[in-house]
Structure formats: structure tokens, C-alpha cells
């Protein structure tokens, strides 16, 4: 009995992912625990391990394929004694069409690739290349770069009706969009209801006011403004797509107000220096090296405990009031091309050194895209710190369902008035963005006030 390998769900909410890389090729033997492929979700790259033993008979979804739905057949494994070629032929018949390769598989399997252990193996080459690369360009790719499988009649009807085919759920074989699907779809971009945004509670009330424009129509419109050859087209990767969608959603749906305070951080800087100096050595290195941001995380976590009503997230028709302060820390990755927000759980209970080490470890894994979804999903609020870039102050966009986000500027020496006299102090400006559906101005002020009080009396963070 051949074994079907399905697109795994890496988190409970994952609906689709990109097949980033195949680490085994057709004809390779695999043992349980072998990493056979890498799956890229919006925020992480995960490894897919083989559960069964066998020979990888056929790869049905080539690497580099975007938006493969969870549970789609991605490969077939021939178990011991099975005719790999027969399995490949059987498995390949159908789903291969669902996601035909945009390009020929990079590693065209050859006869030599067939393992000696399975003498019955014929070169799987013919099957592997059955979906000819040459046929792909015949179909216009959607703006997102994915190929949409649709019948010619469905394409023509969609064009006439102004329906974006990529938003239509196909009822034909392997999700092929047929004429009836287009006929059933509402005209224009309204068909976009199928887009993932709808699944998020925060978007439930949202109806984009702007006239809907299909992705491909928008692309054509935009391209018309620019001389061909003067630009390069860069398709969105999964993360950019999610950022675009979620930030648009947040900006359009969350009624946000902003509160800004200046914090005097001289005491904090002094304490930081002392603590870092006093750090015990471990393996010839300091056991910890606290950053200003580590204090910010701790202070923010404690502030939520002092104003527990602010520790709520938006749930559509109710709030979720959280017990702990789970603080997300925005980490720029890919040289600024992406963003991840790993979460320091129960930050109010953790020491500064623990927070510091955990943040560093999570940030490293975030940059390597090795975070598990559970490590960046959920949380009370988030911190975005652009101080290291010299930004004085800014406002950040809330990441729903959070009700707040703290934007932290650079600590710099400024002229301030203390007790009626001009003085020099190191000042850090922070701005909190608040979701008015969850809290009013006064509560936001209490929260940011509590934060300021803690940050300016940093010894309180040590108790």
C-alpha cells in the first residue's frame, strides 16, 4: 500500500503554506524521522519529517510552490516491495494537475537516482516531467504569482463578469475552477470574501470602502504608470503577503488613538551599567548583557499587571482578559524584508536576565525562520523599538487581536526643565497605540503612566 504524504498543518490555524524545498528527491529512500521537505508558512520555515519508511515515488508539488492547501497530496511514498513506478504513476495521475509546476522540477530525477535496494524502479523521469513547463505560460498567472486552474470557459466568463479567478473556489477536479463556479461567484472583487482576512474576527465588521479591484486588474493599472524595463517585478512571499493583509486590516478596522510620553532614563541607564558590570562570568562570557529594550519589556509587562483591565484583546463580540503579560518583541528579519514578533510569555514573572537571554535566543531563531507558530502567535501586546536607528518617536500599527502596541524611540540627551531649571537628561519617547474598542483614553493613560513610572524608577523591576 503506498503512503500519501499530505501538506501538514504546522499550526491549528494554518490553511496553506509554501513548499519551500524538497530535501529528498524521487527515488530516494526515506526512513522515519528523515527530513524530506521544508514548508514555509507566513512566518516560519518548518521541516517535514517522514513518518513511514519507503521510497519517495513521486513528488506532486514541486518546490517553490506557493499556497499549497493543508492536506493536499504533495508526494507519494512507495513502501517496501512496491513497484515505485506503479505508485508514481498512480499517485501522479491526479493531484499533479492541481499544482502544476511553474517551472520544471529543479532536480530532474534520473535513473541513477533510483536506489539499488529497489531493483524494480524504472527511471521516474517520464512521470516527473509529465507536466511540461512549456504549457505553463499559456495561462496567465494571478497577480500573486500562483497559477489558477480554471477551464477556458470559466476564464472567459470571469473576464466578462470581472471576477478574480484566484478568489473563486473551484469545484472541478483538484479544485479546478469551472464555469458554474464563476457563475455562482459574485461579480467584481466581492468574490474576495474567500480571502483569509474574512476568517479573522477583527475583520468581521470590516467592509473595505474602496471600490474593489481585482489583484490582476490592480497590477495592470499600476504597471501602466511605469515605463516597461524601468522596474523589476517582485512577487510577494508568504510573509509579505500576510503583513500587507494584516496591517491593512488593522489600519482599516481598528479605531486607534495614540498617547505619547517622555521617559527620563538616566536612572535606568545607570542601573543597567551596574548590573552588566556585575554580571557573573559563565564559560568566559558574561552570563547576561542587559539592553535598554530588556528593561522596556519588563516595565511594560509590569504595567499590564498594575492596570489589568488593559490586558485585554479584541474578540469581536467580547474581550479576552489575559492573566499574564505576554509581550511580543518585533524583530526585523531578512535585512528588513520581513518582520516577526516572538513572544516573551509571562514576562512579568521573569527576571531581566531571563528576559534578555530569551529575547536574544528567540530573535536569532526568528531571523533563521525557525520559530514555531506557537512562539509568535497570541500575546497581550507588542513592542516595536526603533531606537537603535535613531528614531526619536513614531507610532506603530496594532497587530490584531492585540489592543495595544508600544513604539519606543531612541534614548537621547535632551534639554529638560527640572524643578524650574533647565537641565540635561537622557530621554526616551514612547507612544502607545490603543484600540478604542477595548479601552478608552483614561485607561490608556493609566497604562502608559504605569510604564513611565516603572521605567523611571528601575529598581522596582528588580524586586
Amino acid at each position, binding site marked *: 500500500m503506498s503512503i500519501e504524504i499530505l501538506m501538514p498543518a504546522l499550526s491549528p490555524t494554518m490553511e496553506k503554506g509554501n513548499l519551500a524545498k524538497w530535501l529528498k528527491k524521487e527515488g530516494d529512500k526515506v526512513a522515519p524521522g528523515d527530513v524530506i521537505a521544508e514548508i514555509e508558512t507566513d512566518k516560519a520555515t518548518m521541516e517535514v519529517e517522514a513518518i513511514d519508511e519507503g521510497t519517495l515515488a513521486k513528488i506532486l508539488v514541486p518546490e517553490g510552490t506557493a499556497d499549497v492547501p493543508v492536506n493536499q497530496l504533495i508526494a507519494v511514498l512507495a513502501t517496501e516491495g512496491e513497484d515505485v513506478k506503479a505508485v508514481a504513476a498512480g499517485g501522479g495521475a491526479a493531484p499533479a494537475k492541481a499544482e502544476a509546476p511553474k517551472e520544471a522540477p529543479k532536480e530532474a530525477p534520473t535513473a541513477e537516482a533510483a536506489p539499488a535496494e529497489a531493483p524494480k524502479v524504472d527511471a521516474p523521469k517520464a512521470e516527473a516531467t509529465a507536466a511540461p513547463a512549456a504549457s505553463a505560460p499559456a495561462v496567465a498567472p494571478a497577480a500573486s504569482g500562483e497559477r489558477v486552474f480554471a*477551464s*477556458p*470557459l*470559466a476564464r*472567459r*466568463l470571469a473576464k*466578462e463578469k470581472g471576477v478574480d479567478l484566484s478568489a473563486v473556489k473551484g469545484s472541478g477536479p483538484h479544485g479546478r475552477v*469551472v*464555469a458554474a463556479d464563476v457563475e455562482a461567484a459574485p461579480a467584481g472583487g466581492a468574490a474576495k470574501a474567500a480571502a483569509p482576512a474574512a476568517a479573522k474576527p477583527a475583520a468581521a465588521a470590516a467592509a473595505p470602502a474602496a471600490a474593489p479591484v481585482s489583484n490582476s486588474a490592480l497590477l495592470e493599472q499600476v504597471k501602466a504608470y511605469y515605463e516597461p524595463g524601468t522596474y523589476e517585478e517582485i512577487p510577494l512571499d508568504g510573509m509579505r503577503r500576510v503583513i500587507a493583509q494584516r496591517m491593512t486590516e488593522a489600519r482599516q478596522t481598528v479605531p486607534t488613538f495614540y498617547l505619547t510620553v517622555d521617559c527620563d532614563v538616566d536612572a535606568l541607564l545607570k542601573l543597567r551599567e551596574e548590573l552588566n558590570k556585575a554580571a557573573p562570568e559563565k564559560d568566559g562570557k558574561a552570563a547576561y548583557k542587559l539592553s535598554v529594550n530588556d528593561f522596556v519589556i519588563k516595565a511594560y509587562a509590569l504595567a499590564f499587571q498594575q492596570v489589568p483591565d488593559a490586558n485585554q484583546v479584541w474578540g469581536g463580540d467580547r474581550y479576552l482578559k489575559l492573566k499574564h503579560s505576554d509581550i511580543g518583541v518585533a524583530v526585523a528579519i531578512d535585512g528588513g524584508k520581513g518582520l516577526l514578533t516572538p513572544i516573551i510569555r509571562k514576562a512579568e514573572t521573569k527576571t531581566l536576565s531571563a528576559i534578555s537571554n530569551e529575547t536574544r535566543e528567540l530573535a536569532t531563531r526568528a531571523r533563521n525562520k525557525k520559530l514555531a507558530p506557537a512562539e509568535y502567535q497570541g500575546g497581550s501586546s507588542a513592542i516595536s523599538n526603533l531606537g537603535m536607528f535613531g528614531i526619536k518617536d513614531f507610532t506603530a500599527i496594532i497587530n490584531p487581536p492585540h489592543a495595544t502596541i508600544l513604539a519606543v524611540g531612541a534614548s537621547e540627551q535632551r534639554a529638560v526643565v527640572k524643578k524650574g531649571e533647565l537641565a540635561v537628561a537622557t530621554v526616551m519617547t514612547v507612544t502607545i497605540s490603543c484600540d478604542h474598542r477595548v479601552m478608552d483614553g483614561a485607561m490608556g493613560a493609566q497604562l502608559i503612566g504605569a510604564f513611565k513610572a516603572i521605567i523611571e524608577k528601575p529598581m522596582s523591576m528588580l524586586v
Partner: protein
Amino acid sequence: MANNYDVLFIGSGPGGYVGAIRAAQLGLKVAVVERQYMGGICPNWGCIPAKALLRSAEIFHYIEHAKDYGLVAEKAGVDIAGVVKRSRGISAQMSNGVAFLLKKNKVDVIWGQATLTAPGKVTVAAATEPAPKGALPVGEYTAKNIVIATGARPRALPGIEPDRRLIWTYFEALAPASVPKSLLIMGSGAIGVEFATFYKTMGSDVTIVELLPQILPVEDAEIAEHARKRFEKQGIKILTGAKVSKVVKGADNVTATVETTDGKVQTLTADRLISAVGVVGNIENLGLETLGVKTDRGCVVVDGLCRTNVPGVWAIGDVAGPPMLAHKAEHEGVIAAEAIAGKHAHAMDKLMIPGCTYCMPQIASVGLTEAKAKEAGFELKVGRFSFIGNGKAVALGEPDGLVKTIFDAKTGRLLGAHLVGAEVTELIQGFVLAMNLETTEEELINAVFPHPTVSETMHESVLSAYGRAIHM
């Protein structure tokens, strides 16, 4: 319990045996009950023996026209016993093939007359035909699912009941002892015109009587008219809008009273009369009433997945309603088997079931006729291409044919295709695929058709619908 099955098919025709094999492929324990003809009517007394006879007729026709091809063939003649023997031999071969396939797929064959006695229970009683080797005996059988696949039989008109001697049905017409000098055929559907072609070629004087104003009533009017002219040119007499109101049997002939719609009454005498006025479903003596299975006009009522109103009872093929075609039955067999196995079965789009008639010239069609398409409110683009413009057809000596294609002018959807001419029954599948894949005229126009083939007429017909035909 050995006698318990996941699914039991009553009837081993194209619906039953194909469904049984599919169910077996899906890992179900399957049985087929048959009382008379392994493989049903199609291989024994239908499609296959008819095609065998028509092949003999076709070859004889070519021999008679050898001169047209620069050949000399003298003293050609018909040995009807030899023609029938060949046909029966082919039937036996096909029927044995069905038995072999069932055995290969480990489908049990139960021999006898099946009756549903309770949900999931079937009593099989003795049949008149002797059981073949390896068949299970009469007795009580149980099955989680029972599929009625009992097919249909010739319709008999009151007062003109077939007697197997003077008034024939297809059974007698498929195995004649001699070629009747004159023949009257009631009904001009596929069965009627195929026998008209066969017997005319074999030397009979043939008259067709059709109640409706058009022969081949389900076909596109233009195609039917084309065929009618060819038939008449061959010497077949055709009366349309005509009803056989009375038949008087003589010693070795029949005299029929025929009334036409214009009020004329005439009497026609012929050696034999073939009653080809359609078929009715075999719904009797199955216990359908006991279980309360709903029937309508001689057929079991089913939904798109072949389910009847009684859970666990299914029906496929002719007994489940028109179109009564073997390939429709086969398809329903597969649908029922997959639905029973819990697979995702697709309901069949009956509009895309092609029809083939093997008269001379052949007729093949799929989808809407021009009249039906207009009736449905479509704005049409209609293409036509004659075989005379096709090199291969002319080289074959078959310059007389027509391919008609009907498109929705708004969307380019292929609504129907209607063909008459040599070998068109082998061409129609191209259009069937096109319709199933929802191609528009564009893909058909852009497709490369091989030269020299008769299939080029299909391409030209599509081109013609868009004012682009090359060879006319």
C-alpha cells in the same frame, strides 16, 4: 455469513457488471445476479451483435460498389446464415469476456431471478436459462446495498404485440433465418434506422413508419434531414407523421394500416414487421412495491447519485430512466459504486452524454440541438462543414457528410455538436471532451487537427461558426 455482500447488483448488463467491477476495485464484497444473458442485452442482443451485422452489411455495400474504386468483384452475395453466425460468435465472445472480468475481479455471480423481500434482502429463484459454471445457486442473499440494474425490454404496442414470427423485435431481427423480401419498420429511432440500413443492404424492400414529423426524433433536424435524403436515395421508403393503427397477420406476411397526419389512410403489406418503438424499464417482479421504491413511467426514480427513495436501494442504467444507452448505464454503475464506497462520486451531466447511431451514413451527436439551444434562449453561432471539402473523406469515397457545431455566441461555449457521415461515431468523442473540459471556440480553433483525416471536418465546422472556414 458467506451470503452477505456489501453490494449486490441485480442484472449483469453494462450498468451492473461495470458497477460491480468498480465496487470490487474499491474493496467491496460484490455479487451480481443474472437470470438470462451474462453481460446483459448490449453484448448479447443489442449494441454488439447489431454492429457485427452492420459491419457485414457495410462490407457488402463496398463490394457492390467495387467498381467505384476501380475494382472488380463479381458474383458477390449474401449468406445470411454466415452473417448471423459471425454476429452470434462475437456476442458469445463478449458475453464470455464479461464473465471473465467478473471472475477476475472476484465478483460472485448468482444465477436466477432476484426479488427484494426486505431492505437488504434478496431472494433468488430459479431461472429458465441454465446456470453457467461457477455461478452461485438460488437462495437467500443479503447485501448492505442493492443496485437495480435490470435494464429494459422492447415496448409493445397494443394490437401489434411482437409474436417472434411475423412481428419482430430486435431479438428476432438480430438472428434472421432468411432475409425478408419486404420489411416494415415501426419507429425511426436508432434501432429502427440501423435495421433499415442492414436489411436494405441485405436486399430487403424497407419501409420506415415514424409517428413524429422527423426521423431520428432526438437528433438535430438538419442532421436528420440529411440522413433521410441518404436513406431515400438508397431506396428506403419513409413515412413520417404516420401511425400504424392496425396490423392484420397473414400466413407469411403482415398488412398494416397506416394513417398519416394529413388524414390519409393506406395499407402496406410486408413479409415482416419490426417493432422498434422504444424500450420500457424492467421494473416488474423485483419486489419494488414491497419496499416502496418509487417508480415513474416504467422507470425507477433516482437522484444524481443513483439513489432511490429507499435507503440502501439504488438503480442504474435503462431501468433508472433515459437516455437508455449502454455508456450511460456504465457511467451510472461507476457513480453508484463510488457513492456506496463513500468516495466522492460526481453526478453525471446528462447533456454531455453522446449518442451514436450506426446506420449508413452514421450519426453522432452530443449536447443541444439547434432547436433546443434556441429554445433555451441562447444566442447562437452555428458552424457547418460538409465532407465534400475534406480530402480524406473524398478519398474514402464518402464525400457525403455534415458536421454541425453550435456555440453560445456570448461565451463561446460549445453547446452541441451533430455529425452525419462515415465514421462520425469515432469522431464525436473529440467534441465530448471539449464540452467536458469547457473549452471555448478559441481552444478548438487553436488545436491542431491531423491531416489527412476526417476529423479535420470538426475543425472546419468550428471555424465556420466564426466565419473562418478554409475549405468551403
